[in-house]
């Protein structure tokens, strides 16, 4: 114990003695490990966010989502999509064997919403009564859309807390009026806040009965998408095939004509997200691997020079009884400690940068203990690997030559 402590102390004090060298050696490592940490934290953040979002959408393994408009998952973003699904489609799908529930919705184009002298611009969505339960929304005040509302295409609205804040200054608006475009509505309920999911504020929303959205707020009776829940998660692939057949028939798509809808399963969504973040992670990992390698070479060369400068010290140690391997371990220990110190600094810098990325750029990041282990492991490996040549050089010095 005491000996180990003395060896550690010796390594620390020679690092301190050669601190300007040590600082130089650590710079590259700090950059490499910091960027590795940022990559890792961005990846973790994205994954956590996606997982949270999928959970909040009620997206379990037993459900999938059908979206209007064709194309491929992941490459449609930003493209204006044709709205192709209809309430008839929803009805056909709900009749399929193994389908437990179909929850359609209709997005109304963003419109001006006014209440008294306040106005805002928000997402308006038509939804059926089952929508709130299916997506894990609960009520803060009042009630959700009812079956009767659908039957009458009632002009009632359920609002998110952001809307409450902007239109009513935060006061409970149940029973009060608002206008969507020119159409007057009565507020019947307020949704419990869900917070932001990074790129969008989920409380910035107004829900109206689906039939009201199709009949009173837009010129068509099409729907934007629907969530389909299966009675049995193992039948997802099978029912996906049946749904495709039904929709192609409903839309009279001939052979060779591509689908005008897109079925998104949780599996595919997860794959897409990990594929996107993986390519980013691979790229940045390459960048930090290069900087780690370069810093390793820098460490090696500086330590080689330091060994020549310290030949005398090595000679003294050999004269009083240090074996070759004692010198070898000493130099390895030093390079390991430089690297570990650089790794810890890099990790701290990376955590700080990730925090700044979240604070200033709104990029979601998350810390994970595995990132800490990776950072330390990587830098220790760099230190050990590139410390071997200097350590061998030091251990190979002849005591008499070293003392000259």
């Amino acid at each position: 114990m005491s000996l180990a402590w003395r060896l550690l102390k010796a390594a620390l004090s020679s690092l301190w003695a050669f601190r300007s060298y040590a600082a130089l050696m650590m710079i590259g490592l700090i950059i490499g490990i910091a960027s590795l940490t940022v990559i890792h934290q961005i990846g973790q953040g994205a994954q956590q966010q996606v997982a949270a979002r999928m959970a909040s959408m009620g997206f379990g393994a037993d459900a999938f989502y059908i979206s209007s408009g064709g194309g491929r998952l992941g490459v449609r973003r930003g493209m204006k999509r044709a709205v192709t699904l209809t309430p008839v489609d929803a009805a056909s799908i709900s009749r399929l064997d193994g389908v437990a529930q179909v929850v359609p919705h209709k997005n109304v184009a963003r419109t001006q919403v006014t209440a008294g002298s306040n106005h805002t611009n928000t997402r308006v969505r038509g939804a059926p009564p089952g929508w709130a339960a299916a997506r894990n929304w609960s009520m803060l005040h009042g009630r959700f859309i009812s079956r009767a509302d659908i039957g009458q295409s009632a002009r009632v609205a359920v609002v998110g807390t952001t809307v409450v804040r902007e239109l009513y200054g935060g006061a409970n608006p149940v029973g009060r009026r608002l206008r969507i475009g020119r159409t007057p509505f009565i507020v019947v309920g307020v949704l419990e806040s869900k917070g932001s999911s990074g790129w969008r504020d989920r409380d910035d929303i107004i829900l109206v009965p689906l039939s009201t959205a199709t009949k009173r707020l837009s010129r068509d009776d099409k729907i934007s998408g629907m969530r389909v829940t299966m009675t049995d998660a193992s039948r997802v692939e099978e029912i996906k095939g049946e749904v495709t057949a039904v929709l192609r028939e409903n839309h009279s798509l001939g052979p060779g004509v591509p689908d005008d809808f897109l079925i998104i399963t949780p599996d595919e969504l997860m794959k897409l997200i990990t594929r996107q973040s993986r390519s980013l992670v691979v790229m940045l990992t390459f960048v930090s691997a290069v900087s780690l390698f370069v810093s390793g070479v820098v460490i090696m060369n500086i330590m080689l020079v330091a060994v020549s400068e310290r030949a005398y010290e090595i000679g003294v140690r050999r004269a009083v009884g240090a074996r070759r391997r004692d010198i070898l371990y000493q130099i390895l220990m030093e390079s390991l400690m430089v690297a570990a110190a650089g790794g810890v600094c890099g990790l701290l810098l990376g955590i700080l940068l990730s925090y700044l990325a979240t604070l200033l750029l709104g990029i979601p990041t998350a810390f994970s203990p595995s990132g800490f282990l990776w950072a330390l492991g990587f830098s220790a490996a760099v230190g050990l690997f590139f410390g071997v040549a200097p350590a061998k050089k030091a251990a190979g010095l002849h005591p008499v030559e070293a003392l000259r």
Partner: protein
Amino acid sequence: MIKLKGITKTYYRGKVETPVLLGIDLHVRPGEFLAIMGPSGSGKSTLLHILGLLDRPSGGSYLLDGSETSTLNDDELARLRNAKLGFVFQAFHLLPKSTALDNVLLPFTYAGHFPQDAAHRARHALARVGLEHRLHHRPGEMSGGECQRVAIARALVNDPEVIFADEPTGNLDQRSSLEVISILQGLNAEGRTIVLVTHDTAVGCMCRRLVRLIYGRVDSDEIIAEPTQAMRQLQTLMEAAK
């Protein structure tokens, strides 16, 4: 204790051969205070390095405590240096960033296990050379004489059988030289074996046996009946200075 027979040493630099020791026979007995003298380049340091197991001879036999050293490997030589030998060099060879105490503790770091009473023994060794008030000074903060005394304490701390000193007074003024030699004489009086290299006749005459080396051979080997007492010289010097 030490028996050299036919020790030779030839340096090779590329194709150039430099024969330095041409066959040294030497017997060092316990408790001796031996001076090796000779002109510069006669191979004194080379011989001392071989005696101190810092270097290997090119030929011949070296028995330390009756066992042959030429068959030992590097690690075994290091262990012997650590356990049985102590070194004092002309240029002190202290670790410049370490305190006197840490310098003296250095041999224990390589002793296989770090003794419980290491710090106590190091303090004791420093007290033995009169430096109990310099424990936490670094070499840069001490005089040459003090540095050399730290080096002696370091050579002494693991209770070696022999202390080797290569021109220990070579970098010191007269007074510091006398202090250092008087410490060595005191150690020898307590029974410690010392082998010292010098080209200074005055220093040579303070030892109890004098071996002269010329061109890599032992030229003479004599006992000094009445070595000069460094302590007395030191007192004379101090009185003269008053």
